[in-house]
């Protein structure tokens, strides 16, 4: 087979692969690239912007590589200039110290601004008051407490569309990371610490949430459903959950036992102050916990 023919076949093969994969990818859901809320949307735009800027340096590298290897290869029979001792040129070296530096300066400015703008602790501007949800990662499920509505759920949250949700996050177990890619980036859940995250959905839908940090054998099953819906459906859901069994000491202790691939569960009237007491309990020794009556909690 001639070299040219071989190249055609390789090229054709790559083309076929590209076509098949783009057809496949157009049919599946790619959450990070299909944001459904303002935070994830800005993060996605930032991703495109930074990628575009980097191509300014990366494309020349690829073109130069191909060009130089082709032109100066000794398999190329045409006569080419050969300067075996040319090893220094202040101007050209200056240029390629300068170009990446200039690019990084631009990227640095973008990064600095974006880091402030997309600080996960920053409230989302909205006419609707945020809904507070306290999140506890447990072995191996997520407990969500709605303090204002006096309910709690496991592996399922519902909230109205176009309304910010304010998560307070901690862990009753090894470290986890709360991630709903279509709505926003992730943040760690750590025992004895409280992190925060604001999200908002601007489209009705069910979004997949999961833990992004390994936390033991049930980690792969720490998946939950985040449902953004209308105010009416949300209120109806709250009423329905309010009639569930209570999250008292007994049911909490039952729940905190390790369990795998947990289906959604609903509780009413969670123990008051459960979230804060849990964070606190990891910050003090047992005898101190007993003094203030939170020793039972972990």
């Amino acid at each position, binding site marked *: 087979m001639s070299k040219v023919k071989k190249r055609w076949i390789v090229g054709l093969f790559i083309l076929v692969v590209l076509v098949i994969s783009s057809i*496949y*990818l157009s049919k599946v859901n790619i*959450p*990070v690239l299909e944001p459904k809320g303002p935070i994830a949307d800005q*993060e996605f735009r930032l991703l495109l912007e*930074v990628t575009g800027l980097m191509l300014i*340096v*990366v494309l020349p*590298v*690829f073109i130069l*590589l191909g060009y130089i*290897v082709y032109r*100066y*290869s*000794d398999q190329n029979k045409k006569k*080419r*200039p*050969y*300067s075996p*001792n*040319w*090893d*220094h040129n202040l101007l*050209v*070296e200056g240029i*390629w*110290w300068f170009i*990446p530096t200039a690019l*990084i300066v631009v990227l640095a400015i973008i*990064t*600095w601004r*974006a*880091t*402030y703008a*997309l*600080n*996960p*602790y920053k409230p989302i501007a909205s006419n609707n008051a945020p809904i507070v949800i306290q999140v506890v990662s447990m072995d191996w499920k997520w407990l969500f407490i709605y303090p204002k509505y006096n309910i709690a759920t496991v592996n399922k949250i519902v909230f109205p569309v176009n309304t910010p949700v304010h998560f307070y996050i901690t862990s009753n177990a*090894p470290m986890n990371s709360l*991630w709903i*890619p279509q709505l*926003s*980036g*992730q*943040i*760690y859940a*750590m*025992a*004895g610490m409280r992190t*925060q995250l604001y999200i908002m959905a601007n489209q009705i839908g069910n979004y*997949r949430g999961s833990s*992004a*940090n*390994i*936390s033991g*054998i049930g*980690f*792969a099953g720490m998946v939950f459903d985040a449902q953004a819906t209308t105010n009416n459906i949300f209120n109806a859901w709250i009423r329905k959950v309010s009639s569930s069994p209570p999250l008292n000491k007994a049911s909490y202790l039952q729940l905190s036992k390790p369990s795998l691939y947990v289906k959604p569960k609903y509780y009413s009237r969670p123990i008051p102050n459960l979230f804060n007491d849990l964070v606190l309990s*990891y*910050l003090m020794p047992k005898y101190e916990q007993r003094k203030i009556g939170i020793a039972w909690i972990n």
Partner: protein
Amino acid sequence: MDKLNYFASFWLGKLNLKALPPNAIQMGGAIMIVSILIGLLLFITFTKRWKWLYKEWLTTQDPKKIGVMYILVALGMLLRGGADVALLRTQQSISVGHNMGILSASHFQQIVSAHGTIMIFFVAMGLMFGLINLIVPMQIGARDVAFPFLNATGFWLFFAGMILVNASLVLGDFAATGWLAYPPLSELKYSPTVGVDYWIWSLEIAGAGSLMAGINFIVTILKMRVKGMSFMKMPMFVWSVLGAMFLVAFAFPILTVTLSLLALDRDLGTHFFTAGGGGNMMMYVNLIWAWGHPEVYILVLPSFGIFSEIVATFSRKKLFGYSSMVWAIAAIVLLSFTVWLHHFFTMGAGSNVNGFFGIMTMIIAIPTGVKLFNWLFTMYRGKIKLDSTLLWFIGFVVIFTIGGMAGVLLAVPPIDYQLHNSLFLVAHFHMMIVGGVLFGDFAGISYWFPKIFGFKLNERLGRLVFWFWFVGFLVAFIPLYILGFMGATRRLDHYSAGLGWQALFVVAAFGVVLIGIGVGLQILQIVVSIKDRRKLRDVSGDPWNGRTLEWSTPSPVPFYSFARLPLVSERDAFWAAKRLKQKDTRPYEDISIPKNTPLSMVIAGGAFALGFGIVWHIWWMAILGLVIIIVTIIVRSMDEHTEYILPAAEVERLDRMYAAGGSN
């Protein structure tokens, strides 16, 4: 009965029959590793090679032989780490929806952790230290390293750590925590088995070995350069190794301390990193990455150095922008200690903290980009010989650039929130470590192989190996970028159906098959080359028209390296010498050479006993190991006759013989 229990727990600690593998797959792994070991021992016994092995290899202080042993261990571990991958990707291709796959979650997670640990500590580090041992002394015109005994001990500690990791296949289990074992998951409360202890102690031991090797090579490069080789005349590989070894010297103590604190938590009940009791897990995460990020540069800098040598040689042209390259290395060394926090932007630090570390991370892209342009312009106006050795470089540029782009994305904190701990991240760092580090080491092996063994590797197979690795690698990792965008996190042993992930995992697994064929061909390449060694023999000592001092010696290089120390007056000293065609008429001199000693091995044996003893709480064994180490060090320091003299007349005789093309 109580007495018997007491007796057993004194002698065996926590070790009992339950430590044997619990299921068929794990048992299979154990049987395989044990039978490989027995097979090796039987082979050596039947071919009557014990004496030869002991005299020529196990007790050697010659850095060239130590280098070969490093590389052999590393290649063996590459097979182990690769077998791990085969299991992981098989599981992920089938464990969807109702199908739970072939591995239990715990076993899957152990394999994940073992794969990472082995590939970094015992493959990448092993290949790197192997090539450094082989080449750095020769490139600076030295016959030996500064501290040969320390160097040999470093290797044997690396070996002991390797044995300890693999022992976990047979007795007990391995950490199921990911390769960096974040607490509180790695604390006793959540990981009560010996797995994490195996992880801690194999890294403690291997890490101590790395620190020794690092110190040895800093001193070697600073103090043992041949007369005339000033800093700015050193080959670029030597510069990059110097940078990497400074990183080793500053970073590895952090690892040692961090692991020790975790061990104290587990064995003595302290609360450095525990959840509760005043422990702080994020302290561990900070510390481990204060070692872990420099570690990446420890691995990649020597590879950069190898590429610098190869690009210049195969373009038959001087390296472009030498001083730029040196400053770029210096910049990378300094910056690599200022970016560790980018591994956990998602812990909830403030914007100024995240912004600072994000920008510092991007700044590293500048010197790296400069190096890339310098390599390209080394090829510009050269005469490029497209050997398989250079193909690795071209593959590296393609993969490293794509991976680097992904890296800059991850350096922007808000983008990182979306991609952290996803398979996008996994694809990124594999592109850096496989494309950057491993490809460089492979290029180095095929480049320097004739110098060490006296014959070249089969070129046709070499090209095939490259193409399988390169294409296989892209097929295995491009889908992971997409999976990351699809929300797939790392270390998942199972996922629900209907996410569209399975097809991509299957493609990735196919990529692993292609890489596997590449590895098979690599083994075939070595076998075929050994068979054809007469045809592939390098009689000149300089098969690639090299530029640096190692090529001035005959191939295979004699044990004393240089009969007469080389003369250096400019950069690329051997290239200059070839041009001047001067005949060396200086008289030969006596050479002092370190004597062989088994004590390095004894120290490593003690370290293994110490580690294994602590893992299983067999305290007499741990104490015995410690005593062995201390006594051996004392005995060794009393010995004042650690070298012997090779007389000038003998050097002359050997040199004439090698010059005439003879071999010993």
